[in-house]
């Protein structure tokens, strides 16, 4: 992909500049600001907002991955088989819950701030990872598992050395979906007073300052697209390595 090789570094440079040197872009955003109003968001440093946004997403996704993969392993063992239909129902029904609603419903129980956002991101992030991990672990080629048993690997060794590595690409797809949803939901988290890049967009919406809206929207959008792209590359590399 030739477009990618040029576009990717260019977008990364633009994103870094937008976050670290926002004032460079003042002429670009000036036409969208209200007459005489501020053009560049300066109520908080964009770098610290970006870092706290990404920290929320990383923490929630890491926790969700750990819990979801553990649950998927348990459910795909013979002892957990009775829970398989139930877990499928929960993932199907749970994913119809809008992320915004999960966020809004977390507030009455946990109050405002980063807490409810983190919980909502974690809960919602579980579902795609669990679904994909379960698919990955339950659709392994039987011949491979048989061969692993044949060379004398016990259950634990089979899981660690054969099943998990083979299921990894499918699991990564789930993690990618979950990270992308988390990035978006964390943006809305600023409506419940979590410090995220959504703050810039919300501030723009509240003061009718389209320059803020565009600035925040561009940064969040670029982060999402670049992270998504990086995870896709990682998956492609893993698939070509396992020869899938």
């Amino acid at each position, binding site marked *: 992909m030739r477009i990618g090789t040029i576009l990717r570094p260019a977008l990364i440079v633009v994103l870094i500049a937008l976050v670290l040197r926002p004032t460079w872009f003042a002429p670009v955003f000036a036409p*969208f600001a209200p007459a005489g109003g501020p053009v560049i968001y300066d109520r908080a440093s964009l770098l610290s907002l970006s870092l706290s946004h990404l920290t929320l997403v990383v923490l929630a996704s890491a926790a969700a991955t750990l819990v979801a993969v553990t649950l998927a392993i348990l459910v795909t063992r013979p002892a957990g088989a*009775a*829970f398989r*239909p*139930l877990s*499928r*129902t*929960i993932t*199907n*029904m749970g*994913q*119809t*819950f*809008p*992320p*915004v*609603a999960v966020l*809004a*419903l977390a*507030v*009455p*129980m946990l109050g*405002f701030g980063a807490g409810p956002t983190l919980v909502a991101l974690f809960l919602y992030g579980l579902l795609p990872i669990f679904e994909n991990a379960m698919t990955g672990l339950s659709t392994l080629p039987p011949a491979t598992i048989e061969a692993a048993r044949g060379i004398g690997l016990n259950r634990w060794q089979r899981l660690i050395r054969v099943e998990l590595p083979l299921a990894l690409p499918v699991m990564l797809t789930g993690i990618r979906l979950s990270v*992308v949803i988390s*990035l*978006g939901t964390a*943006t*809305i988290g600023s*409506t*419940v007073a979590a410090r995220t890049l*959504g703050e810039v*967009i*919300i501030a*723009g*919406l509240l003061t009718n300052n*389209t320059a803020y*809206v*565009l600035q*925040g*929207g*561009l940064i*969040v*959008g670029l982060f*999402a*697209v670049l992270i*998504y*792209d990086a995870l896709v590359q990682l998956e492609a590399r893993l698939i070509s390595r396992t020869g899938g």
Partner: protein
Amino acid sequence: MPLPRSASALSPPGLLFAGLGLFLLVTPFMTLAANRIVAGEGLRAWALAGPGATGAGLAAIVAGLLFGAQNVRRRLRLGGAAIGLCGLFWLIVRGAPALLDGAGDYARVSPAAGFWALLMVFLLLMADALAQLSPGPLLRGGLLALGLAVLALLLGSGVLSDLSIAQEFASRKSAFVAATLRHLGLAFGSLAAAALIGFPLGILCHRKARLRRTVLPMLSFLQTIPSLAMFGIMIPILGWVGASVPGARTLGIAGIGFAPAFLALVLYSLLPVVGNTVAGLAAAPPAALEAARGMGMTVGQRLLRVELPLGLPVLLAGLRIVLVQNIGLAVIAGLIGGGGYGTFVFQGLNQTATDLILLGALPTVLLALVSAIVMDILVDLVRATPEARP
């Protein structure tokens, strides 16, 4: 009921639900607050009303959990879920007036965490029991209609009107109706627009591999852009269109409101529609296409009579994804003046008024769930037909 002796007579998920449910029974079931804003005091289920009223509800909940835990009679598990739900609502209906009695004019009662968690437990028990019985699409449709009818009866009869969320509703009846219509308009309107654009685009992509290689990655990048950013970026674009294209403003196209929300939703919908159209058309077995070609069908005839009917379940599955996704995303429209249930959610968040948040969030969740179930039934129905009709 004779006690089940062997382990297989018990349902492991049912046991989990029973343990969880019994634990949840000792958590606060309802909240009594002095007014709309202050935090209330949590009350346990047995402290809601006199022992005669709470006893029956508690007994129903415990019985429902026990019926759900056995695995001898599977229909009884479904019955257990229904009995448990009756118990939950009985406690709410009897508890609310008893708590409000003498508590002051501004006092508010609302269901607390215990109620919501138990509601979740019984709904999951019901779903688990149903999955075990695996009813056909028509029976599932009937059960859904029955469930909605009971819910409508419960809401319409006024027995829940003492609850604070009902009071929020009562003071906003016309706004609620307007928000419902707007929410449905956003979700279904964008679905229709996405189908109009997406199906032809998907068919083109199916034919031309080069187009497919550019369009699908572009659409999936579009899908990754966070919703708030997408809605925000639409504002200057549509503001510019509204200001510079003659006649656009009279059509209601402007920077804030319905138009940017609608366009953002359409953009989000394109990937599932186009992607599933391509996947559905590609799923036609080569033998069927060969046979159609052998019969002398033209390209158009093959598309209409072979590829589309065979791919219909996958196409519908794409529409299911879009509908559920858009019902959720339409909430964000509330932030850019686009209306819908999001208006209540974000107003509620601003005022820290929990009941107002619920007034927006609960109908959204219900709408999404019902749409998902209905679309699943439709997918099953069309999947069944081509095999029945050779």
